[in-house]
């Protein structure tokens, strides 16, 4: 982050230091001026009093004896030796006054009011203009001998010295302020630099460190907190450098580990793919095998069903042959009988042939999705088991709209219906209810077609209802069931026809429900 110039430590320290020194200097100057003025006035007063006392003491005899010659001579000499005195006025209470200045002296009879007002028992002074002097420190010293007032000594002091003191004082103050300003500039610069430079250096170094350069080091060597900060900074950078090296080593190590692990995972994935492919292939193979087995089982059952279907026409055909033989022996075989028998035989043979065609159609490979009539498929499938159902007195009731059509694999759907009817038949035979009944109910809802195959064989035992779709699971006697019928039915419905197959028990028996999408509309 860039630091604004005005916010830098250097500028701040410089300004604070400079302002402080300047403020202190001005404060003292402000305080000193009136004090000095009073002091100078006091000095002037003291000097004036001393000079006055000296003059009076030196002239005391002359004053008493009225030796004005001495007084004039002495004061002329005083004036010559004291250029700061403009004039001396000897003012006796009685008689002429003697006015002496640097150029001449003379006698005067009366004082002007300004001066006369200053004559009293106390020492007084007044700064005022007198004669040709614009500004005079007029000092009045009462002359007394043995308590008797003789008169007054007036001395007009030049204020040049006082003014010079004041001017010198102002000059000195200006000088001091000037020196202070120079000091502020010099010392303040050095002081601010002394304070801010190491901080700036360390700040700059810290910025470099923050930028990633850990080779920088502070060269500041001082015995104060800055020195300690410098050492601490260097130690910190050393620590950072060591940490960075450790991190780099650790990163390198991690990278190596990651690479190694990645390689291992890649290898593992490769094996896994192969395993999955193998597994899928094996599963597919197994499924194909199961389907094949299922078909074989179905074919076995169909053979049984054909046998049942053929039993009645074969018996009838046998009876036709026995009647023919009997007529013949009775010699009553005529053409009509013969034709009737032949027609009947032909019908029976035709029926048997038709039965074969039905089974052949049922097992005919049909792997194309096509619309088919559900009612027709259910009835044709039920026809395959008609003989077995009649033999076992099982009543089959089909409730289905004759125009209910869906799209799908017709053969596989027939296989599912056959499996479920077969299972219901076996359950009814096994449990032998009073009126064994199978009800096939196919109804169309909004977007689904539901086919329910219901029996009254007492239902599936609760202990196995969750296992009935497992492959090779069967409750039938050995040799009567393979355990793949329901498994294949569920695979066909859910995988090939995008539907569902579920089972539940009601009060009478088992219910198998096939739900298919109504994709015909």
């Amino acid at each position, binding site marked *: 982050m860039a630091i604004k110039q005005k916010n830098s430590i250097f500028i701040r320290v410089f300004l604070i230091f400079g302002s402080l020194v300047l403020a202190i200097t001005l404060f003292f100057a402000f305080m000193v001026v009136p004090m000095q003025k009073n002091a100078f006035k006091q000095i002037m007063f003291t000097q004036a009093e001393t000079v006055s006392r000296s003059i009076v003491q030196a002239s005391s005899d002359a004053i008493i004896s009225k030796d004005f*010659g*001495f007084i004039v001579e002495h004061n002329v000499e005083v004036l010559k030796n004291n250029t700061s005195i403009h004039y001396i006025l000897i003012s006796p209470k009685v008689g002429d006054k003697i006015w002496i200045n640097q150029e001449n*002296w*003379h006698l005067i009879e009366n004082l002007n009011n300004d001066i006369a007002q200053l004559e009293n028992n106390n020492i007084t002074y007044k700064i005022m203009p007198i004669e040709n002097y614009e500004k005079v420190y007029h000092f009045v010293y009462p002359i007394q001998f043995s308590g008797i007032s003789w008169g007054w000594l007036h001395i007009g002091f030049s204020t040049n010295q006082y003014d010079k003191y004041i001017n010198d004082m102002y000059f000195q103050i200006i000088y001091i302020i000037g020196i202070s300003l120079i000091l502020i500039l010099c010392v303040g610069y050095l002081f601010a630099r002394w304070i801010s430079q190491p901080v700036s250096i360390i700040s700059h170094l810290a910025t470099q460190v923050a930028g990633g350069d850990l080779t920088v080091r502070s060269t500041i060597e001082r015995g104060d907190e800055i020195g300690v900060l410098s050492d601490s900074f260097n130690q910190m950078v050393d620590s950072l450098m060591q940490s960075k090296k450790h991190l780099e080593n650790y990163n390198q190590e991690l990278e190596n580990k990651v690479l190694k692990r990645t390689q291992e995972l890649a290898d593992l994935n490769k094996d896994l793919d192969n395993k999955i492919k193998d597994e899928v292939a094996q599963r597919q193979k197994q499924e194909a095998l199961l389907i094949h087995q299922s078909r074989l089982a179905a074919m076995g059952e169909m053979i049984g069903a054909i046998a049942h279907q053929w039993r009645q026409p074969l018996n009838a055909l046998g009876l036709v042959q026995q009647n023919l033989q009997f007529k013949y022996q009775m010699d009553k075989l005529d053409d009509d009988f013969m034709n009737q028998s032949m027609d009947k035989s032909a019908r029976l043979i035709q029926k048997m042939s038709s039965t074969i065609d039905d089974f052949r159609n049922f097992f005919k490979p049909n792997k194309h999705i096509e619309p088919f009539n559900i009612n027709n498929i259910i009835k044709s499938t039920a026809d395959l088991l008609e003989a077995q159902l009649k033999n076992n007195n099982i009543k089959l009731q089909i409730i289905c709209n004759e125009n209910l059509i869906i799209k799908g694999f017709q053969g596989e759907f027939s296989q599912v219906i056959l499996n479920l009817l077969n299972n219901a038949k076996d359950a009814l035979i096994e449990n032998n209810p009073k009126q064994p009944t199978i009800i096939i109910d196919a109804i169309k809802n909004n977007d689904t077609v539901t086919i329910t195959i219901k029996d009254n064989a007492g239902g599936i035992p609760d202990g196995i209802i969750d296992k009935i779709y497992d492959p090779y699971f069967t409750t039938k006697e050995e040799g009567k069931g393979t355990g793949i019928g329901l498994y294949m039915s569920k695979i066909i419905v859910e995988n090939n026809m995008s539907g569902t197959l579920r089972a539940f028990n009601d009060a009478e028996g088992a219910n198998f429900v096939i739900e298919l999408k109504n994709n015909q509309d």
Partner: protein
Amino acid sequence: MKIPHRILINLILASCSMLSIPTSADELKKDIRLNMGYYFNSISERANRTDIEISLNFWAKELFDSEAKKHDFIISSSRAILFDRIEDMQIAFQQGELDLIVAPPLLISRYFKRSELGDGFVGMLEGKKPEALLLIARNDKNINSIKELRGKRLELVEDDELADIFIDTLFLKELKKGYKNIDLAIQRQKKSNRIILDVFFDKTDAGIVYSSSYTLMAELNPDIKNKIKPLAELPIKGRNFIFFRRDYPLIKELTSVAMSFPDSVRGKQILEVFKTPEIINCKVEELAKFDNYYNEYLRLKNKTNK
């Protein structure tokens, strides 16, 4: 401001006394001394002893050092000797201890042989006006002649033999008696200025003063001329005369240096101490006037005594 030049001359001479100056290029490095003696009473009115000693032994030496280089001579040693008695100065001069003397002309004429003196110089008033002795008196005392001084108060300068001779001569001429034999109240003051003030303030009726003092005091207070008038005058050129020892080798050079005092700051400073603004040459023969005056005085005095 006009100042008696007696002291001034002494000072200059004293300054000169600090020099030891060769007369030619060959003598530049010789150890030539300049011992100056002067009569203290004749200059004490103008400056105190300390000022004189400082001015002679430090300022004058410094000045002569610098001035001597300009005139191609070297000052090796100088010395100023103050004499309270003219007789002591006379003896020192006769013994060759002094190279230059500073004293009132009357005393020089009386105590020093002409044959031993070389030409010198004398301090003059501003504008090179000559000094003079004046007999002054208050106007309001009705004193218009020497005779009218009888019964009056008279002030004289202390230790000033010429003033005494001057007033004595006046009385001898007019009254045939010395002033000490007249009815006079005689007082003495150290300074001529003070006598004028005393006359002004009516502390005395008359006095003997130097004209330079009278002029000065009249400048300080012009009213003095209204109250005081001169009755008699004795021209004397200067209060003090400065003469070299006749065989002193650097009379011309030192006189030239003394003449250049007014041209330098330090020289002016020295002259200011002795209140003498101007310096002119002085011949030994000029002492004859004082010889004559003194001889006349002696004649009158002797005549009166007879």
